């Protein structure tokens, strides 16, 4: 009976692991302890107890339910069944063309990158439209993103931090120091404002019409996320997908490969309204009065403009600023006349171009405001 219990728990854990859940040996041991500690008198009890021990986040509930049902109803079948829906741990599949190219281009371009652009090149590059950028120019974007991120992290907050210098005397620490001088405050300690951490939520359009731009904007997000901790990234085309974890790779090419394996509707159509609705439903709790929400999209929407307007309003109310970056805005004869754009505009705090480096630089100002 006991051996049976142990092998059962271990088998269940193995199955959960194969479906991408983080289940360690410690978990398996806890599972056995939980089943043994009495009161587990029915299947329902066992289910609740094991779920409490083995599940770590709400997204895993569904997988757990499936595996548990399969495991305890048909123990043998599960042994041979392959993973149905795996979370995290991306499986490499046939990658959509656009993205897989980016990855390999990045790697191949490394030999050319040795040519450092001269000052005049750089000036020209600042105005150059992203749609004509080469893979080796990505580095510029990265540098810019880092700088913006550092500036963002350096804003003062209401809270204080102690140190050797600063505008105000830190009485507590001064007295603490004075103890070694028989209570004479010879050395003053000061305090200054702690840097405030701005949160950023970026929602990037990767539909077909954005093809030429989204790779650079993603690169920008990647670098931004690498520098400030509190960035949440999402991509959408016909459906919304959180990519924060995928972008958290040490290497951009690797991050891109992960993205292309996980995101299936690259370069598809656009349904901004539905995707923002999905965001507001599932992720609005990540947005608060300190959060800057950045939407990167050209506003070509095939969905319902009224829905888009309503979702934008919700987002604006919850966030500190709602910024819409539109690469098309860089072209002199563009006017935001699409129905979607018209519906969204009244709720946008900043509507700015994002087609070249100068435009991204201007973004710094908007994020800090």
């Amino acid at each position, binding site marked *: 009976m006991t051996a049976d219990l142990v092998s059962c728990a271990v088998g269940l854990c193995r199955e959960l692991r194969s479906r991408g859940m983080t289940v360690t040996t410690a978990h398996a041991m806890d599972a056995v302890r939980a089943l043994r500690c009495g009161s587990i008198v029915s299947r329902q009890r066992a289910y609740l107890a094991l779920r*409490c*021990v083995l599940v770590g986040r709400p997204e895993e509930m569904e997988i757990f339910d499936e595996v548990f049902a399969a495991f305890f109803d048909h123990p043998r079948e599960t042994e041979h069944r392959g993973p149905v829906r795996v979370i995290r741990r991306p499986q490499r599949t046939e990658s959509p063309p656009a993205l897989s190219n980016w990855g390999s281009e990045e790697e191949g371009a490394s030999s050319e990158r040795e040519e450092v652009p001269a000052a005049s090149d750089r000036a020209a590059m600042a105005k150059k439209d992203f749609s004509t950028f080469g893979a080796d120019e990505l580095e510029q974007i990265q540098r810019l993103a880092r700088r913006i991120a550092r500036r963002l992290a350096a804003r003062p907050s209401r809270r204080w931090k102690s140190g050797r210098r600063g505008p105000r005397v830190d009485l507590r620490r001064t*007295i603490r120091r004075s*103890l070694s001088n028989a209570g004479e405050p010879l050395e003053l300690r000061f305090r200054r404002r702690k840097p405030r951490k701005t949160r950023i939520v970026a929602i990037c359009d990767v539909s077909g019409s954005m093809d030429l731009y989204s790779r650079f904007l993603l690169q920008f997000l990647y670098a931004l996320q690498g520098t400030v901790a509190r960035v949440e990234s999402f991509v959408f085309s016909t459906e919304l997908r959180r990519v924060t974890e995928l972008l958290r790779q040490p290497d951009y090419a690797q991050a891109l490969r992960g993205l292309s394996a996980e995101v299936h509707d690259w370069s598809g159509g656009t349904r901004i309204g539905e995707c923002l609705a999905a965001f507001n439903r599932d992720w609005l709790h990540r947005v*608060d009065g300190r959060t800057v929400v950045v939407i990167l999209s050209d506003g070509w929407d095939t969905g319902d403009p009224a829905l888009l307007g309503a979702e934008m309003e919700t987002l604006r109310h919850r966030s500190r600023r709602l910024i819409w970056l539109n690469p098309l805005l860089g072209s002199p004869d563009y006017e935001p006349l699409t129905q979607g754009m018209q519906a969204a505009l009244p709720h946008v705090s900043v509507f700015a171009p994002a087609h070249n480096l100068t435009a991204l630089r201007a973004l710094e100002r908007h994020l800090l405001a």
Partner: protein
Amino acid sequence: MDRIAQLLDQLDREAYVADPAIATSLHLAIELRKPLLVEGHAGVGKTEIAKVLARLLGTEMIRLQCYEGLDASTALYEWNYARQLLHIRLQERDGHSGPDAEARIFSEPFLLKRPLLQAIAHEGRAPVLLVDEIDRSDEEFEAFLLEVLSDFQVTVPEIGTIRARERPHVILTSNRSRELSDALRRRCLYLFIDYPSFEKELSIVRRKVPGASEDLATQIVGLVQRLRKAKLSKVPGISETLDWASALVVLHASQLTPELTAETLGCVVKDEADLRKLRVEIEAGRLPAGAP
């Protein structure tokens, strides 16, 4: 009767309407002595769990409220500088000083115990330590907390190591405003509390607002349940339902009329845009259309 059924019964006596999932989680948290991470929307009774648990176990609850910028010294301990300074001055006047005086001012009477140290140094029965809204703290603090939770001992350089005599019962709550680290999740048991079903919410209202008539309670809960499905930017939690029910009882209401609803809707819906939307619905006669 087995332990979980017993626990459900005890919870009910403490006026906490639980379900088997909550009871099982609490049971395991007590048995395995592992921290329990409770996630769920605002106002579904996450914090309440810790309070009820403390009452059940007949022990004290120690609460650490997290916020951005919370650091180790605020959570663990601090020296009482003002008192130390006073002591030094008094000593000087009496002509004492030297290493003796220093040892004295770095002893326990001068130590300000913050919640984590309070929980560890607690005498008697293991207390319940509530780490509320852990998602609001910084990642660095989370790492620090992880360390404390794994060995329940703290070293104060001037005094020495303080070890917990008995592991406290730890409840952590999170509103999911940021993703918690895998390390923390791994170390905890997990409980997700969703908005309650109609029946569960009704029994909560019955328990907590006994003055409400059966009709009124049914109508209130029915409407709140509908509101949760409507697309509001701020979804009402159970505490809002209870506030509303209490307000209506104070107004001696026995039925939920459209006028009454319009006047008291502010108890449940706390967003101007939402309120505007709902007022239109009420005027059009679509709200409140009674129980589902």
